[in-house]
């Protein structure tokens, strides 16, 4: 069935199709419509779930942790400051190995206060032990939430499905909505192997003394690394049933490209347009899109980017005092590789600033120049910056 739906509506619909048992959420722009929609589903009896109107995002994820620990399928959604407030619990949900799915409508972080899109919020919690998927369009948001529960429950890991605030959250697109019966076949009911149950008491979240703590963390790391294969397997199975596949990465006209763009999220669509135009003129350019950011597809990126002469990373985040997180990660992926492309980082679209075709072209041209000359003088650049204001010469 095809419906025209916004990113927020499909996030709510994804949770409904996954038959979540408990929803605990707190409203925040631009995620709010997810909470509203889920409240409507529950109010109308379309979704048989406990809807907890908690008093903060910290409590939202804490409540999901409690619900998940007794074996319920739990869902929350947030953005930006909300994600920051629940970040303590993200690390704990991962450490407790609870398969909660978190939808995050990407939004900039304060200060200054800004409600518009960038990806600083979820990039800031990349170390949490929570799987992170970045979506390019609303169909992918819906499909990823359904896939997320499979990955989460089979590995006992929380999964975050990220989609760009406003750009996706508030944009309506035609969506293929899968039948409930088909989703039910794909996603069986959740069964926690050791839930909190008086019949068989367990202690969950004990004090991890130095003699054991590292092993707990290493097992979490193993699960996160295993999530790569799991994401691929679940995606393949999803593809067979529903006809849509996404992979860990998307490689767009990249096979023979000398110059590549590396992106995540909705920006990829704009960048693909530019790639098409350059291709028409016979230029060997392409794009690689990161869908799974954690676990990080390092080997796959080396494979996908390794043949290029230069790579321009376009990203809506920055690890202040160094560079964008995606740039640092992809650079690290090449650390022991003999032939690595030159890497450049382009910070763009922060706080909802539009990333124009002109700006993407600027990045592509800079990378092409680097490919020609074989050198990168300055690795980190800002696109669309009014340089006079910040006291930078052009």
């Amino acid at each position, binding site marked *: 069935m095809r419906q025209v739906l916004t990113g927020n509506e499909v996030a709510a619909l994804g949770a409904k199709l996954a038959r979540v048992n408990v929803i605990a959420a707190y409203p925040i722009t631009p995620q709010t419509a997810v909470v509203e929609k889920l409240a409507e589903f529950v109010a109308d009896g379309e979704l048989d779930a406990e809807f907890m109107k908690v008093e903060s995002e910290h409590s939202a994820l804490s*409540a999901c*942790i*409690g619900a998940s*620990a*007794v074996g319920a399928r739990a869902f929350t959604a947030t953005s930006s400051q909300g994600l920051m407030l629940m970040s303590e619990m993200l690390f704990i949900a991962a450490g407790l190995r609870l398969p909660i799915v978190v939808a995050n409508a990407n939004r900039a972080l304060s200060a200054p206060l800004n409600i518009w899109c960038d990806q600083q919020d979820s990039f800031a919690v990349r170390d949490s032990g929570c799987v992170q998927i970045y979506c390019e369009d609303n169909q992918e948001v819906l499909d990823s939430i359904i896939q997320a529960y499979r990955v989460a429950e089979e590995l006992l890991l929380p999964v975050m499905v990220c989609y760009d605030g406003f750009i996706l959250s508030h944009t309506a697109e035609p969506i293929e909505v899968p039948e409930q019966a088909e989703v039910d076949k794909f996603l069986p009911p959740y069964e926690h192997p050791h839930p909190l149950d008086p019949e068989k*008491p367990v202690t*969950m979240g004990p004090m991890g003394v130095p003699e*054991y703590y590292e092993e707990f963390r290493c097992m979490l790391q193993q699960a996160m690394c295993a999530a790569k294969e799991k994401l691929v397997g679940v995606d393949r199975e999803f593809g067979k049933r529903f006809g849509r596949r996404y992979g860990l990465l998307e490689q767009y006209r990249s096979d023979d490209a000398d110059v590549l763009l590396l992106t995540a999220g909705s920006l990829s669509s704009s960048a693909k347009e530019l790639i098409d135009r350059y291709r028409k003129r016979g230029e060997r350019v392409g794009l690689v899109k990161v869908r799974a950011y954690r676990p990080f597809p390092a080997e796959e990126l080396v494979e996908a980017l390794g043949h290029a002469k230069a790579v321009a990373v376009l990203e809506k985040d920055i690890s202040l005092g160094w560079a964008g997180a995606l740039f640092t990660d992809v650079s690290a992926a090449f650390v022991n590789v003999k032939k690595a492309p030159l890497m450049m980082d382009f910070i763009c679209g922060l706080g909802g600033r539009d990333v124009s075709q002109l700006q993407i072209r600027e990045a592509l041209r800079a990378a092409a120049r680097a490919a020609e000359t074989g050198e990168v003088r300055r690795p980190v650049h800002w696109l669309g910056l009014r340089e006079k204001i910040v006291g930078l010469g052009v």
Partner: protein
Amino acid sequence: MTAALPGIPEEELVAPGHRACAGCGCILAMRYVLKALGKNITVSMATGCMEVVTTPYPETSWRVPWIHSAFENAAATASGIAAGLKAMGREGVKSVAIAGDGGTADIGLQALSGMVERGDNVLFICYDNEAYQNTGIQRSGATPFGAWTTTTPIGKVKRGEDRPKKDIPAIIAAHGAPYVATASVAYPLDFIKKLQKAAAIEGPTYIHVHAPCTPGWRIENNKTIEVARLAVLTGAWVLYEIEDGKFKLTFKPPKRRPVADYLKLQGRFRHLTDEEIAEIQRMVDEQCKRVGIE
């Protein structure tokens, strides 16, 4: 010992071998909680003394399902458990949250307020040892006036805690919770009765149990019960319940003893001058007058 208390089950659901200090009033409170509530519960516990001493991996003292996730969210986690149990159609299992006074009165107050305001089916128990004892005796919102702690030291210009104890049961009662009660480890039958009453109520209930900390209060290991009892006998700690908004004393000290009797057993009050003790006595008198204790 348990046999001496009629109506209290002998079975220990808090296993021995935990790391609580000798004479710990809080671990005693935990034992009473589980004796009163039995096995059909889940416990969501805040970070704090009881969490730390009972679960050094790979050991645990809990013979009931137990979870610790963070410090400030025992209530929210317990609310999630209650919602999960309801969604899964699990009946007859009570979601219980347990936190110390810091995890209740300070960092955990928002989540607790949310839990009560939403009417979640959770019994929240605060074990009050009147400071952040787990981190080494720092004052909390529940530290009483005049007490020494490491963050309210006795110096040349400051003389211990300068604010009265935050009245958490009153705050919870103001939310309209169907049942709020205070208790003391020195009055186990009263405590157990209240626990059972609270657990039987569908909705948010709250019990605040006064529990001495031997190292934090600077008392002898064998004085825990004596000190806890003196708190009640002097009127420094009042035993009551508020059921559907109705306040009722559950124990009236026959002849109230001077608060100095309570204070003088504790090293944390050793610095107090006669004038300061008189000031505390005035505060206690006022509190007693308010609740109808002579």
